[in-house]
């Protein structure tokens, strides 16, 4: 008989017996193995029996034998592949647990060798890396040999595959799994440059991970599901996030900012950073960096460059951390981790709550010289050479926010401040700035929408409005078109840039541009059904007593809050023009229309306007009856025409022809619901005074009728009226500003 025939005979006999008498089957195989120790099939059969019976210890011994004696057999590799797959997976079924137990029975040396060889057999970089990771986790001594090369392989794979986002499977494995093994292994001696490189890779990953968008394209697995989640009402936060190539479980990165701090602490210790006590909070780190910065000028050579790298690395992390916190409060829908159904974005704007006061009218008349002097009194003098007249506003500005609408306001403002301070620190020395810029360009932070939002707000806060404008234009270029559609639920995310542009133009005194932007915003708004008056209720109003016009305000980015802001901004623009020494009836008229909003806040200004009209003796504003429905104002104007009122000549009607030929349907309707109760004053006034200066009886009658109609419109939704005003008079409004 040939050897092959013998072996086949022996294995066959064993197989026949295995169910009926497994002991006999094994006895046959033991005998067979002593006859043909080099025959693989015999040993594989022995192994199969033990494995099928899930006898961990004996199966392990046999696997060991096969691994040692038949390292090239494909069947052995199939087994090893199955086992290592079980090791990598988080599957909890009985067989997977058996396989893991089987692996555990092998001597460490064999485990190590098995994993290494299994790794060699892997052609897929990701699997290979996972396999090596198993090895490194189990055998810390192998980290010295394989750790860095595995890390480099992953980073290389990342660049070969040309992956756009740092949040990819290779980087994830590198940062979350390999890097901690490398830097925690005390037998490893890594050059500082490599540690910095790794630190930066980790930071880029964690930051990108935490700031990833709600549905980063293509990374949401199962496109069908993704689509259904986008439907209105589905909470965005519930989206599962999967890094391509990884399982859902291993796609989860817990406490990214904390992990980043951990790595920072270890890298710090390894690089022997100055005064590094492994502090645990970002704010503490910033404090330490500030102190360290003071010593920078006294350092030189290697110490200096080391110290500089420390400051830049640490401060950069603080900057991004606090900027992230700020933006996640201000624009929560931007991040997957933060988005929740009710989250409303907030927008940083000039505070216009003092628009109804008369104080700043002086400012406008006394021009820049006067203003600069005034500013100089109130606050520290800074950077007089800075662009435009926003100079000096950068320090100590107040940000007003409705505490009831935003519970976390204090933390948010803290984050904003910390981020600004970090930024300032990074730009306090040229060398620091260069190094920081190098990080930014390698991370392509230019493409980070959220960072741009923070930077814009920071620049606005600093009062560098010219810069802010260009930043806002950049911001607008970020917005992908589809995002406009996604934003439902009354939020005006897509208008954010426009509103801020308006606010900045206003602050720069570019009223026409400001108005243009505001009107663009308003045209996209839907007027609220609610009557006006409540929108400006604010807890923090009392704080506006001082530092008028230089405070900022965080407004919730909703129609309800934005519409009033737009109206205030327009009012602020026109107010200055209306009350100059030169006569500008159109501006004054606009002011009067706008003053209706939030009535009677604007009463004082209205009276001032009335005074001005009285002084002029005449007033021409043909849109008056289209947009003024405030009963107090109507009364006042009716009175102005009377002798007691000064017999002011009012030309408030467009022209008669227009009134007669084209009565607006609304007017026609309400005219029938004539409300006599509200008109006695008007009527008496008409009765007692004669019309002067070429106004015919017919005209006088038209005015009276118009007044009567107007009174009946008092119940109209003022916001609708003002909205229409903005839309219909857009051109005239813009043109009436310089």
């Amino acid at each position, binding site marked *: *008989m040939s*050897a092959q025939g013998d072996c086949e005979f022996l294995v066959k006999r064993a197989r026949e017996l295995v169910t009926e008498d497994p002991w006999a089957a094994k006895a046959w195989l*033991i*005998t067979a193995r002593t006859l043909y120790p*080099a025959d693989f099939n015999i040993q594989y059969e022995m192994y199969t029996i033990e494995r099928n019976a899930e006898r961990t210890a004996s199966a392990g011994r046999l696997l060991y034998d096969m691994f040692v004696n038949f390292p*090239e057999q494909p069947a052995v590799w199939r087994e090893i592949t199955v086992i290592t797959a079980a090791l990598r997976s988080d599957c909890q079924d009985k067989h997977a647990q058996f396989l893991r137990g089987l692996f555990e029975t092998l001597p460490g040396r064999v485990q190590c060798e098995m994993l290494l060889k299994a790794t060699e057999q892997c052609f897929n970089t990701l699997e290979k890396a996972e396999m090596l990771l198993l090895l490194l986790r189990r055998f810390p001594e192998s980290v010295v040999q394989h750790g860095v090369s595995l890390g480099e392989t992953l980073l290389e794979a990342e660049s070969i595959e040309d992956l756009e986002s740092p949040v990819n499977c290779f980087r994830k494995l590198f940062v979350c799994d390999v890097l901690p093994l490398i830097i925690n292994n005390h037998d490893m001696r890594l050059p500082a440059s490599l540690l910095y490189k790794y630190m930066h890779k980790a930071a880029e990953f964690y930051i990108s991970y935490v700031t990833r968008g709600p549905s980063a394209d293509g990374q949401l697995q199962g496109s069908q599901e993704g689509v259904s989640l986008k439907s209105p009402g589905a909470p965005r936060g519930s989206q599962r996030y999967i890094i391509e190539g990884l399982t859902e479980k291993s796609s989860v990165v817990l406490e990214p900012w904390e992990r980043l701090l951990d790595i920072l602490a270890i890298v710090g210790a390894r690089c022997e950073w100055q005064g590094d006590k492994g502090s645990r909070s970002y704010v503490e780190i910033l404090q330490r960096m500030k102190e360290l910065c003071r010593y920078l000028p006294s350092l030189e050579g290697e110490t200096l460059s080391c110290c500089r790298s420390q400051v830049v690395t640490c401060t950069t992390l603080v900057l991004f951390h606090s900027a992230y916190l700020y933006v996640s409060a201000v624009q929560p829908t931007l991040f997957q981790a933060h988005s929740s159904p009710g989250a409303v974005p907030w927008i940083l704007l000039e505070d216009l709550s003092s628009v109804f006061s008369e104080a700043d009218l002086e400012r406008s008349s006394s021009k820049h010289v006067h203003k600069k002097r005034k500013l100089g009194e109130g606050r520290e003098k800074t950077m007089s050479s800075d662009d435009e007249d926003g100079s000096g506003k950068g320090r100590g500005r107040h940000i007003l926010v409705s505490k009831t609408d935003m519970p976390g306001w204090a933390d948010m403002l803290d984050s904003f401040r910390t981020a600004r301070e970090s930024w300032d620190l990074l730009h306090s020395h040229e060398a620091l700035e260069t190094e920081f810029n190098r990080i930014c360009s390698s991370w392509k932070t230019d493409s980070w929408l959220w960072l741009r939002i923070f930077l814009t707000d920071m620049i606005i806060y600093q009062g560098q409005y010219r810069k802010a404008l260009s930043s806002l234009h950049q911001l607008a270029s970020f917005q992908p078109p589809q995002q406009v559609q996604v934003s439902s639920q009354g939020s005006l995310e897509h208008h954010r840039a426009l509103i801020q542009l308006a606010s900045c133009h206003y602050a720069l005194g570019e009223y026409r541009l400001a108005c243009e932007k505001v009107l663009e915003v308003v045209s996209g708004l839907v007027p609220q059904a609610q009557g006006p008056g409540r929108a400006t209720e604010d807890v923090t109003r009392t704080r506006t007593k001082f530092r008028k016009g230089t405070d900022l305000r965080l407004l919730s980015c909703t129609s309800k809050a934005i519409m009033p802001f737009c109206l205030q901004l327009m009012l602020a623009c026109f107010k200055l023009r209306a009350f100059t020494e030169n006569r500008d009836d159109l501006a004054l008229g606009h002011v009067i229309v706008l003053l209706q909003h939030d009535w009677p806040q604007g009463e004082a200004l209205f009276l001032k306007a009335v005074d001005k009209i009285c002084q002029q003796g005449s007033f021409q504003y043909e849109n008056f009856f289209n947009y003024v429905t405030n009963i107090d104002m109507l009364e006042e104007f009716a009175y102005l025409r009377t002798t007691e009122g000064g017999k002011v000549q009012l030309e408030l009607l467009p022209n008669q022809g227009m009134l007669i030929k084209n009565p607006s349907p609304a007017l026609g309707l309400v005219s029938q619901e004539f409300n006599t109760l509200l008109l006695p004053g008007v009527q008496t006034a008409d009765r007692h005074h004669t019309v002067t200066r070429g106004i015919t009886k017919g005209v006088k009658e038209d005015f009276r009728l118009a007044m009567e109609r107007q009174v009946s419109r008092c119940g109209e939704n003022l916001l609708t009226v003002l909205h229409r005003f903005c839309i219909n008079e857009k051109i005239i409004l813009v043109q009436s500003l310089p």
Partner: protein
Amino acid sequence: MVKRLLAGLVKPKYAMTDIRQSLLRRDALSAAKEVLYHLNIYFSGQLQNAAGPAVDNAIVELVEEFIFLIPKDRNAPQKRMSSLQELQLLEVMCSYFQEQSKDSLRQVVFSALFVPQGNEADGCRMSMLGKLVSMAVAVCRVPILDCAALWLQRSHATHCVRLAKVLVEDYCGSALSPGQALRHIVTVSPLFCCQLITAVTALYDLSTDELIPSSELLEMVVTWIYDDPGLTLLSFLNTPVPPSRPPGSLDLTPLLGLIRWCVKSPLACRRHRNPSPMPRETAEGDRGMESLYSKLHLSVLQNLMLLQAHLKENDLYGRLGLLSVEHVAKLVGELARLADELKPLNAARETELSLNRLAQSLQVAMAAGALLCSREDLRCLCSRLPKNNLLQLVMSGPALQPTHSVFYPANPPRLSPVTHPAVPSTRTTFCS
């Protein structure tokens, strides 16, 4: 009394007669106790001497006269102990061995009491030993079991078999489950169990129906061995190499005896049950037995593989034939006769099973280095046996140059193929 005995120690020659005189005056039980105490004192003194202890005649006589109650003078009245007294004496012994913490002292006292002297006292000696060990099993007195293990190693096989018989009758014959007591002792005195298995397999050699082990005994042995694969090798591992054993003593391991059980059982059981028609329960019992033998057979092979590892580790491979070729030849002869005997009974299945097991045992034993003989010897040995494929394969050995398995020079196989292990020069050939 201790003081007096201590005084006696100083001059043992004089003392012995004095002691005897004083013992004669006592009743049987207290005299026996007194002897025990005396042995303790005497040997603990001797153990301090460089020469080491020696059991001299005077001591043996003292033991025989006062413990086994063999009168020294034919005409002296024979003392007797009542059953109660005997039990009391056993208890005293039990606690003596239990409490004596010095191994060497315990062992020499045990030997002084129980090593057979080839005289008329041996009957009593064996009977008391049987009772003592049985008691020790029952109440788990580990030191006595350890002493008994040594005794089993050193005594002649016939005596060992007698002790084994007592224990088997006490524990495996009765309706009582052998379970608890015996199952437990394997964990506390494995050496004793190993020796006991050797003795038991020597006793029950399946030569007659009466010498087929009972299912209780079989089950116990299988359980012991299956749970503790190294058990059968324990005595061997505890013996210095090369093993020097008193002539006529038991095998160093129970392996051959167990192989005999496995190899002969299919035919022996068949012969046993043949005349009577088989009732249903018996059939099931048989199947249970068959499966136990199958399990035992596997265990034996596994034990042989363990042995191989040990031999290789200690560079003894091929130099120490643990299974003597003579014994194997005898077994083959027994099997051949049995097969012949059963030929008319149409026992082809049983014959096949027996021969398969024999072939497997021989092959694995040879591969393990336990059986030192060549394939040629084997062919001679087995020539009388009926034809069997596996046996044929084993006799001719593996075909050279296996064609389908690749040879890896870098990784030599763990087991070197069983070709011809180094043959000792004194090897006897069995082809004549």
